[in-house]
Structure formats: structure tokens, C-alpha cells
């Protein structure tokens, strides 16, 4: 492909691309022409043929029974899971008791001091304010329970992630084995992780902690491995040239060089763990998540908010503090050692004094008189909103009308269309889209994942979930692209959006369900709406970044040729930001799926409902099958939207 001039090469590449795409399609069409009639003749009907399903509910149910019957007698449980479970309980309890012993003043001062040392005065004030707000909302004890659980889960995730990351970062073979697994785990909804742990550990704190660890460890592992692999080869060579041993190379060079990535991994792990805090309350995590869950079950928006706000505050504070640590590491500023030691001593003394004061005055628990009840006013406001916005608003119609229209005009046609399409045709569509956007490998994975859904026997509910995902993705993309374009073109718009996006991105998925239920009632429409709200910030941010990173030279050139704003957008910015746009679509799909399945709690039905049902009825077979289908759906959606670049760029 040695071409002489740039335009010629672009043209050539275009033509090549088009012909390649055409070739792929032709090949698929040929394949379809041979197989489809046969499949259609053999198994008529649109739904997945019953003959091709494997019924797992029997074996799964007996497995679950076996676990329950043998949990207190089988050596596997007595000598392995039992210890794991005990260790978790012991650790959580130790942290919890420490937090309680420190008292509310102690914890607040400790948090503020840590934030001050690593991130400056402003964040310290923010941290203190956040803790005080938790107390003022009457959520001190649940906050401490969640915090205790988070501390243990995050530490375990970090240790596990670090270990896996080290293995993958140092051994190519392990990297090849682990990378696809970690990549996939990254795109799966938290919901899918709940059931397998419940099967083994039963409902309770150990299950919640372990599900959180499984969910939160992959980003740490990925980023650690990435950081280790990205170590500047020049530096590594220099270190080797000085005669460093393997251990010295790792400890003094490779790990410190990866510290920025590792810190980012810590940040991501904490965020993932927190977002799991509420979902894990479905399997007995307790704490704040449990309060949200209880409130959500009684559509008590005020109470849900009172419990949700501390989670958001914790998330925002932890995010900012860890991000600040990451930045500081990047800059590499450090105080002189002597001063640090002295300061530390002073800080420790302050902390000890506060704790002691708390103990002496007996004010360890948050004083009951200092609790502000926000639930009642919030509920009044919500009731007012429901009364005035819910239905029958002139001209625009109420939110309930919107939801109904969205259901009848968007969700139903898509669902019926998907369910009406013959199963083999759907497989072909998946294969075609995945192949056009990605490689034959991604296409194969996507198709197999889709087929696995059929084999599991949950074809119909999966298509229902898929229809909700597609509708929500479409809405998200339209709004997100619009907002991002607006933000990229107007600085003021961007300034206004940024803080909103910052906060939205750190909020746990569950919190979005609360206002949505208040506005849209129950059903599939609110599930889709919550998904839109959840995925929107990420889409706006990625697209906005993509547009802003467009080569200013190209834009200037277009302007110098007299291009209008619209021409600049369509002919320069959007094509040049293609990669970012594809990434946005991919992220959007993944995030939407995560919330659509959580939507099972507010009437979203389909797979999410099956998981909730499985948990609620102890019918692990139903839940596990639905969980597996969610995994397959996530895999399929990720692969279908995965641009080629991610696979060409190996080892990066």
C-alpha cells in the first residue's frame, strides 16, 4: 500500500474499505442463502426453536439445594468458603467497630485530615461537609456500615486486582489469557454478579463483599497491567544497564513508573465498589444501600433521597480525593521528610484529641436532635410534581403520557419487531453489524453470545431487554450528541455542563431510579429513562472530548476556505472524531444495559425482572439463567459496537 500522495491513499483506502465491507456482506449473504432456508424449514417460527434449548433450571435448582443442604457439613464449605466468609465478616466488623469507636467527630476529622494532606484545603472542607451531611440526614450508622463494607471490599479488590495486574503485566502468556476476561468483565452489568455469590454464600455481608470484589477488581487489574506494560522502555533499559535485579527493576522502576495508572485503577475500583453498594443491598449488604432499597420498595422518594445523598457524597469525595492523589503523583511534588514526620505527629495528636473528646462527652453517636428530615419536604415536592406534571398537562402532556407514548410508539414496535424477526435472521444481523464494525473475531463472539441466549431458553425476555436497550441507546445518542456538539461549540455551555457531568458520572446507577419512578411511574419506559440519564454524561463527555481534540489545523483550514459552522461540524469535526463517536456508542450501550436490567426493580420486566425474581423467590435457577443471558447480551452488544482499532492495537 505504498501510495504517493495523500489524497490518492485516502481514496484508495476508502475504496478498499468499501470493497472489503461489500465482500464481508456478500460472504455473509452467501452463508445465509445456504443456511437460512434450511434452518427456516427445519425449525419454523420466529422464536428460538425449542429443540435447540438446554434447560438448565433442573440442574441449577438441584445444585442450589445441594449447597443449602451441605453448607454446614461439606468440607469445601467448612474448610474454604467458611474461612473466606469468616474472614470477610471479621474484617468488616473490625472496621465497623473502629469507625464507631472513633465517633462521628473522629471520623469526620480523620477524613478531613487525610483529604487535606493529600488534596488540599478545599477538598478537606468538602470531605468534612460530606460527613456532616451524612449525619444530618440521620444516616450516620448506615453510612458507617457502608463505609466499613467499602473499606474491606475496596482493599480486597485492590489486592486482588494488583496481583492479577502484576501477573498480566509481567507475563505475556497470562496477559493473553486474562485480558479478554477482564475486558469482558468490565462491560458486564453489576447485576449479573449477584447470583453466583449468593448461591455459594447465601444472603449476607460476605456475599455482598465478594460480589463487590468481583465487580471492582477488574479495572485495577487492567490498569495495573497497562501501567506495567507502558513503562518507558528507555528507563527500563537504563535501569537494567545499572545492573538491577528483577526485584529491584520491579520495585524501584516498573511499579513507580506505573503509579499514575495504578492510582487511576484505585479511583475506578472505589467508584465501581460504591456503585455496587446499593445493588449489593439486594443480597444483604445492609447500610445505605439497604435504606435506598427499602425506600425504593415503598416508592418513598424522600427516604430514598436521604439515603442516596450520602452515597453520592461519599462517591464524589472519594473520587476527588483519589483523583487529586493521582494528579499529585503525576506532578511529583513532595514535602521534605522531616516536616512530613512532624506534621504527621501533629495530625495524629489532633485526631486523638478529637476522639478522646468525643468519648469523654459521650457524643460518639450522631446526636438525634441534629437530624434534618428531608424526606417529608421532598415527598411533598414530589407529590406536587406528580400532581402537576404527571398527567394532563396542556399541550405537552404529562410525564405519564410521555411514558405511555414512548412505550406504545417506540418500545412496543421495537420489541415486536425483534420478536417477530426469525431467530436466524437476527443472528445474521448481529453477525453483519459486528463484522462491518469490527473483525471476524468480534463478529463470531457476538453471534455465539446471541446464540447462547437462545440455547439458554430466554430468547423472548432477552429480546424484550434488547428492545429497551436499543430504544434507550437511540435516545441517549440523540440527546448526547446534541449536547456534546453544543458544548463543543460554546464555551459557556461547556462550563455549565461540566460540573453536572462530573457529579452524574460519580453517582451509583441505583440513584437514578428514584426520581424516574416518581416522574414516570412504573414499567419499561422509566427503566429506559433511567438508563438514558445514567448513560448520558459519559456519552456527552466522550463525544465532547473527541470534538475538542480534532486537529485545530484542519478546522482552521476549513474556516479559511469559508466553511459554515454546519459544514465545519459535518465535514471536519465529526469525521475526524469518528473514533470518539464509536467509543461513545460502545460505552453508551454498555451503560444502558447496566441500568435497563436494574430497571427490573421498577417494572422493566424481562431479564432484570428474572434476576430480581430469582433473588426474591430464592429461585436461583431462574436468576442464574437470566444472569447468564445478561452476560451474553452484554458481550454481544459490546462486540457489535466495538471498533476495529481496539483489536489492531495489541499490547498497548
Amino acid at each position, binding site marked *: 500500500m505504498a501510495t504517493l500522495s495523500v489524497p490518492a491513499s485516502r481514496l484508495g483506502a476508502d475504496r478498499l474499505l468499501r470493497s472489503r465491507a461489500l465482500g464481508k456482506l456478500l460472504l455473509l449473504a452467501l452463508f445465509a442463502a445456504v443456511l437460512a432456508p434450511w434452518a427456516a424449514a427445519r425449525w419454523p417460527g420466529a422464536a428460538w426453536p425449542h429443540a435447540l434449548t438446554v434447560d438448565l433450571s433442573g440442574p441449577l435448582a438441584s445444585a442450589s439445594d445441594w449447597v443449602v443442604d451441605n453448607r454446614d457439613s461439606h468440607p469445601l464449605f467448612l474448610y474454604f468458603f467458611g474461612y473466606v466468609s469468616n474472614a470477610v465478616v471479621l474484617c468488616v466488623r473490625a472496621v465497623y467497630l473502629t469507625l464507631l469507636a472513633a465517633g462521628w467527630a473522629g471520623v469526620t476529622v480523620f477524613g478531613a485530615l487525610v483529604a487535606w494532606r493529600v488534596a488540599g484545603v478545599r477538598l478537606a472542607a468538602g470531605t468534612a461537609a460530606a460527613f456532616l451531611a451524612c449525619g444530618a440526614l440521620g444516616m450516620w450508622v448506615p453510612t458507617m456500615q457502608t463505609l466499613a463494607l467499602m473499606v474491606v471490599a475496596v482493599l480486597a479488590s485492590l489486592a486482588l486486582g494488583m496481583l492479577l495486574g502484576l501477573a498480566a503485566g509481567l507475563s505475556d502468556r497470562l496477559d493473553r489469557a486474562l485480558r479478554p476476561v477482564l475486558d469482558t468483565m468490565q462491560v458486564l452489568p453489576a447485576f449479573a454478579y449477584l447470583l453466583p455469590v449468593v448461591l455459594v454464600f447465601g444472603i449476607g455481608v460476605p456475599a455482598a463483599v465478594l460480589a463487590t470484589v468481583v465487580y471492582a477488581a477488574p479495572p485495577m487489574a487492567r490498569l495495573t497491567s497497562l501501567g506495567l506494560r507502558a513503562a518507558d522502555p528507555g528507563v527500563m533499559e537504563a535501569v537494567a544497564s545499572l545492573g538491577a535485579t528483577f526485584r529491584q527493576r520491579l520495585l524501584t522502576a516498573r511499579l513507580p513508573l506505573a503509579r499514575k495508572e495504578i492510582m487511576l485503577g484505585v479511583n475506578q475500583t472505589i467508584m465501581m465498589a460504591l456503585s455496587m453498594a446499593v445493588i449489593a443491598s439486594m443480597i444483604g449488604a445492609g447500610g445505605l444501600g439497604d435504606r435506598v432499597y427499602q425506600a425504593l420498595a415503598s416508592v418513598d422518594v424522600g427516604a430514598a433521597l436521604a439515603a442516596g445523598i450520602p452515597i453520592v457524597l461519599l462517591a464524589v469525595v472519594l473520587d476527588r480525593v483519589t483523583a487529586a492523589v493521582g494528579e499529585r503523583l503525576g506532578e511529583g511534588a513532595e514535602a521534605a521528610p522531616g516536616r512530613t514526620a512532624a506534621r504527621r505527629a501533629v495530625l495524629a495528636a489532633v485526631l486523638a484529641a478529637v476522639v478522646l473528646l468525643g468519648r469523654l462527652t459521650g457524643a460518639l453517636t450522631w446526636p438525634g436532635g441534629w437530624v434534618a428530615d428531608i424526606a417529608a419536604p421532598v415527598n411533598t415536592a414530589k407529590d406536587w410534581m406528580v400532581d402537576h406534571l404527571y398527567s394532563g398537562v396542556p399541550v405537552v402532556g404529562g410525564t405519564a403520557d410521555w411514558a405511555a407514548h414512548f412505550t406504545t410508539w417506540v418500545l412496543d414496535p421495537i420489541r415486536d419487531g425483534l420478536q417477530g424477526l426469525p431467530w436466524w435472521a437476527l443472528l445474521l444481523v448481529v453477525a453483519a453489524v459486528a463484522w462491518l464494525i469490527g473483525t471476524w473475531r468480534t463478529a463470531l463472539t457476538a453471534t455465539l453470545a446471541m446464540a447462547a441466549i437462545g440455547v439458554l431458553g430466554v430468547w423472548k425476555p432477552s429480546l424484550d431487554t434488547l428492545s429497551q436497550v436499543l430504544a434507550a441507546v437511540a435516545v441517549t445518542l440523540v440527546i448526547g450528541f446534541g449536547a456534546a456538539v453544543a458544548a463543543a461549540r460554546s464555551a459557556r455551555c461547556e462550563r455549565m455542563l461540566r460540573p453536572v457531568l462530573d457529579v452524574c458520572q460519580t453517582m451509583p446507577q441505583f440513584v437514578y431510579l428514584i426520581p424516574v419512578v416518581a416522574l414516570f411511574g412504573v414499567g419499561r419506559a422509566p427503566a429506559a429513562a433511567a438508563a438514558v440519564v445514567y448513560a448520558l454524561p459519559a456519552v456527552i463527555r466522550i463525544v465532547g472530548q473527541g470534538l475538542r481534540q480534532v486537529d485545530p489545523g484542519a478546522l482552521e483550514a476549513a474556516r479559511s476556505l469559508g466553511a459554515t459552522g454546519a459544514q465545519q461540524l459535518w465535514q471536519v469535526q465529526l469525521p475526524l472524531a469518528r473514533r470518539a463517536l464509536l467509543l461513545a456508542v460502545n460505552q453508551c450501550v454498555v451503560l444502558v444495559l447496566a441500568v435497563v436490567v436494574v430497571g427490573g426493580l421498577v*417494572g422493566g420486566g424481562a431479564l432484570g425482572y428474572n434476576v430480581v425474581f430469582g433473588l426474591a423467590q430464592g429461585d436461583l435457577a431462574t436468576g442464574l439463567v437470566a444472569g447468564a443471558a445478561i452476560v451474553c447480551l452484554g458481550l454481544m452488544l459490546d462486540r457489535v459496537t466495538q471498533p476495529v482499532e481496539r483489536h489492531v492495537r495489541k499490547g498497548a
Partner: protein
Amino acid sequence: MRFRTTALVAAVAALGLTAGCGAADMTKQASPFANARGSKTVTLSVQSWVGAQSNVAVAQYVLEHELGYRVDTVQVDEVPAWDALSQGRVDALLEDWGHPDQEKRYVADKKTITDAGELGVTGHIGWFVPTYLAKRHPDITDWRNLDKYASLFRTAESGGKGQLMDGSPSYVTNDKALVANLKLDYQVVFAGSEAAQITQMKQFAKDEKPFLTYWYTPQWLSKKVPMTEVRLPPYKEGCDADPAKVACAYPHTPLKKFLNADFAKSGGKAAAFLKKFRWTTEDQNEVSLMIADQRMSPQDAARTWVRGHPEVWKRWLS
């Protein structure tokens, strides 16, 4: 190489040591949040419906203020609550709507759970329509006439059929099988939670719209939105044995309490109190209404009730 061997030896030794120390039975494991700071803690499981919240709120209030316990509550649905109860992660389940499988496994076979007697409330599940609708169409209360009115109950979610609204997935329900076996032109739509269901029902009731719903008594909402039951084929002992073939009404169930077996033995005053805890449908509804309709916090509602009915709860402490 030597380093590796040493590590291996150490690992094996550690494993041997821990294993040597004995088995770790995770079914004898309390919640890590229990018994914090010296005070004795009772962990109660709460189910998602308001009646269950009322039981727990009152029990919690009495335990905390009269007996000096700390009470933790955990939101667990009934079936998982059985498992958690058996493992000792919660101490009590105050309102069970009848789970014969679990009862056999945990109470009779494994003996990890003890029957703590009846709650005093009798539960009944059924299909209900709002009374204003029953007055308009008196014959709607017979299941045989439901198909006639299917078009009344059509919604966006139910497609071309009538909508039968179900609530939380955790509730005992045979509705899908019933619809199929009675050959009704209806679609079961799950609201996903009781609260979602109640929101929807209130919306309908505000405009006096027709709706058909899975419902149960005692239920506080019945005071706000009077409901009339639709007669299904009568319940006979054993007619609901095969969940797939059910074609009869739901039974009337005396609701029961269950305690963790260890807690029942060594739970002291708390266990004794919970065994005696027994009140009427009216009592429960009074608390439920305060919580669900007047939006009082469960604590406040419990306090109000306790102040008003000393004669009831004093009996539980004797």
C-alpha cells in the same frame, strides 16, 4: 528457586495450620454489624410490604425502648430470609405467608429455625378491582365474566389483552398459571415492587379508571381505595400443589413468625418477647396507614401506636 520452595512450604504450613484449627462453619455466623459497642443487638428481617414494616417497627421500638436492645433491620424478601434466618444472619422473620418447602427443610429437617407462633393476622391473596368499578359493573366480580371486560383493562404494557397487575416479584403468586389455566384474555404485568403497584393504583383511583390487580389483605390501602375481590374457582386443600396447574383461588393464611433456633434458645428477653408478639389486623393497619399514607417514619408511627395501645404490648413483655 530456593525462595520458591520456601514460599511453597510456608503456604502449605499455613494451610495446614488453619485447617488444623478446625472447620469454619459459615452457617453459624452473625452479621458483622450486630452487637456493636457492647449493647445486645437483634437483627430483624424486613419485607418490602408495609405490613411487614409495621411489625418490625413496633417490635423494634419495644425492643429498643423497653428492653434496651439495639435493633438492626435488613431488607430481605421472604424466601431469602429463610436462608438468612437459618444461617443466623437475621434473628427473626415476623410475617411469613406460608412457605411449606422451606418450613420442612429448615424447621423439620435441619432444625436451624424455630416456629415462633402466629402473628395474629390472617392474610389472604386474591384478584381485586376497585369498589367503584364493582358498583358500575356488578358482574365483574366473577372470574367467568372477566373476559367480557378485558378491553377495559387494556394498557400500553399489556398489548391487546387486559392487564392484570402484579406487584413485587417476591410475593407468592400463581397469576401467570391462573391466567393460562383459566384461559383468560389477560396479560400479567409486574409492577416490580409493591410501592410501584400502589403508585399505579392510586393514579388509577384518582381518575376512577378501571383496573384489575393482584392484591391482598390486610392492606392499609384498602382504607383509601376500597377494593372488591373477584371470585376465582374456590380453594380446596391441595389444589395449588402443582404451581403449573393451579386453577383455584388463594387460601386464607394465618401469618406466622419464625426465629433462628439458636436465637430462640439463647436470645433471652428479646426471644421471649418476639415469641409473644401477636396483634390484630386492625393494629397492623393502623401503623401501616401512618407509615404509608401519612408518610410518617416507621419509628414515629411505632411510637404513636405504642403510646396509644399499652394494653396490647404490655402483654408481650409479661
